[in-house]
């Protein structure tokens, strides 16, 4: 094909026109998008929080039970890798001195020795994991939930270094063969190479359901609600009990409270 200045100008003119028309196309496409209606049953909140009443948790057995862990891990297709090195966990048990390091003295540890404490993501008010993520794959929603986009995460694990609560797990290997319970088709499984953690059951809240750990606890040890709502269960519990949070000195503003 012969090319000269004239044909070059023609082609570049058409290209410029096309590029110039892009915003118009975008605007039109935007207008044509369907408006999604929220589920009318959706549980809406401004600042979700959890209060864990450890005394209720230990009511049935000194060792605590695994109902909440099982419910959560089954619901979210959490794999059971079987090693400490690569363990994936969303909610799990730790001893007092591991849950609250630096807040121990030899006598209080003696009183609550060997008793389990429930650990999960604190959905911090100032989450360091969100601050350090280079792709916004982990982000904070308007209702306070700290979420993960498993399809955007590049697996740099900066969030794991940033989290002072050890709440984040990395999929060192393909987790799918290690999902030992029945697969829940309503929740995505993860791929090798991404980070995951508790999401306060955002997908259940959208359908008007309580988080699966809260729902599964027969003793009612886990309370979930909106901190901004003075009439919520969590606010009532916080008003009537002495509660502590994990590592308050770090300024992260954890939103999981403990009654001990």
């Amino acid at each position, binding site marked *: 094909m012969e090319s000269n200045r004239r044909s070059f100008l023609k082609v570049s003119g058409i290209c410029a026109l096309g590029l110039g028309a892009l915003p118009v196309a975008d605007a039109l496409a935007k207008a044509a998008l369907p408006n999604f209606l929220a589920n009318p049953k959706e549980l809406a909140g401004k600042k979700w929080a959890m209060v864990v009443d450890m005394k209720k948790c230990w009511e049935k057995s000194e060792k605590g039970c695994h109902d909440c862990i099982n419910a959560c891990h089954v619901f979210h297709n959490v794999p059971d890798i079987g090693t400490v090195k690569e363990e994936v966990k969303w909610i799990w048990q730790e001893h007092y001195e591991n849950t609250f390091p630096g807040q121990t003295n030899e006598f209080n540890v003696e009183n609550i020795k060997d008793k389990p404490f429930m650990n999960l993501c604190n959905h911090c008010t100032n989450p360091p994991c969100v601050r350090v993520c280079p792709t916004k794959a982990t982000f904070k929603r308007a209702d306070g939930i700290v979420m993960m986009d498993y399809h955007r995460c590049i697996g740099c694990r900066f969030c794991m270094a940033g989290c002072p609560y050890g709440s984040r797990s*990395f999929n060192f290997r393909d987790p799918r063969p290690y999902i030992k319970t029945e697969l829940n088709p309503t929740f995505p499984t993860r791929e090798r190479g991404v980070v995951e953690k508790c999401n306060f059951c955002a997908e259940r809240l959208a359908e008007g359901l309580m988080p699966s750990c809260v729902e599964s606890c027969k003793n009612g040890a886990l309370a979930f609600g909106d901190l901004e709502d003075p009439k919520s269960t969590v606010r009532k519990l916080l008003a009537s009990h002495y509660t502590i949070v994990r590592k308050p000195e770090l300024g992260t503003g954890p939103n999981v409270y403990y009654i001990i």
Partner: protein
Amino acid sequence: MLERALTGSQRYYRWLMFLLVFVGMGFAAYLYQLSNGLTVTGMSRDVSWGFYIAQFTFFVGVAASAVMVVLPYYLHNVKVFGRITILGEFLAVASVTICLLFIIVDLGKPMRLMNVLLYPTPNSILFWDMIVLNGYLFLNIVIGWNVLEAERKGVHYPSWVKPLIYTSIPWAVSIHTVTAFLYAGLPGRHYWLTAIMAARFLASAFASGPSLLILLAFIVKKYSKFDPGKEAIDKLSQIVTYAMLISIFFVGLEFFTAFYSNIPSHKHALQYLFVGLEGHGKLVPFMWAFVILAIAAVALLLNPKTRNDEKTLKIACVCVFFSMWLEKGLGLVVAGFIPNPFDQVREYAPSIPELTIAFGVWATGMLVLTILYKVAVSVKEEVA
């Protein structure tokens, strides 16, 4: 100019082949890691960064080789550095290449690397580290190449290079500072949460980069007709002496704050590194090797007699380089994760595939360095 890298002695080709063997082995190990995941490494949910990120951190420091010759030459008119600025710049190029490769091999999802550009996130220090490292790579390759080409043609380098040279000086400070900020801003990682982290990075960089540069200058002198010059090496060795003393001083400051304040969480990582914590002490021998090498280096560098003697200076530089490697490329990153957020000690040791990949990355860096140095030295020989 690049064609000069294609013709060389048999020894040159043998060296390239030797490096390529390690590059190939590293690449094979990386394919293995890519298909199995980071489970093939020694990293865990507790020590979630290991050998790769530690090497990345150390080699950011080595890249300081450029600024330590460029700054005195262009700002203080230290003429003896004129002959070797190119060696410093090309060493920086190779080091930053190593850094970027170590980041890539550490990613769980390397195919999503471009997400960092697609979703730019200024609140993440990693975003800024990507900018400063790539910028520094670009500056040094453009400056080095153009100045060398001008030298070959016997003309002054183009005027637009000058602003880039001046930019490269504060830019060099930024790569160490921003890399230190990756660590120094994380709540709950007490070993890293120190205001002098960036200062420590700068000091150790100004020791490790120029010490390697001195060793490379000796190698260049031995195997080519280009002599970097005794005065340049003398000046560099003085820089290494000061930087090494300041580095050790800074490490000492960490000890004072942790142990005089007596705050357990501040002492733990240092205890783990130097005496062991709760019966775990895999890194203890390495950290004492750091101490011994650092003392040996200082002893050899402080004495003018041993500093000015070629043989002892070489030993001193090896001591500086490896002591800083142990401190930054091994202890610093791993100890930040120990104890874990639950106050438990979970140790880390790199796996064989992990080390093979690391060898591959080092070899790739050395390959880049060899090719660039071959070009530079060939031009220098022609001009001489």
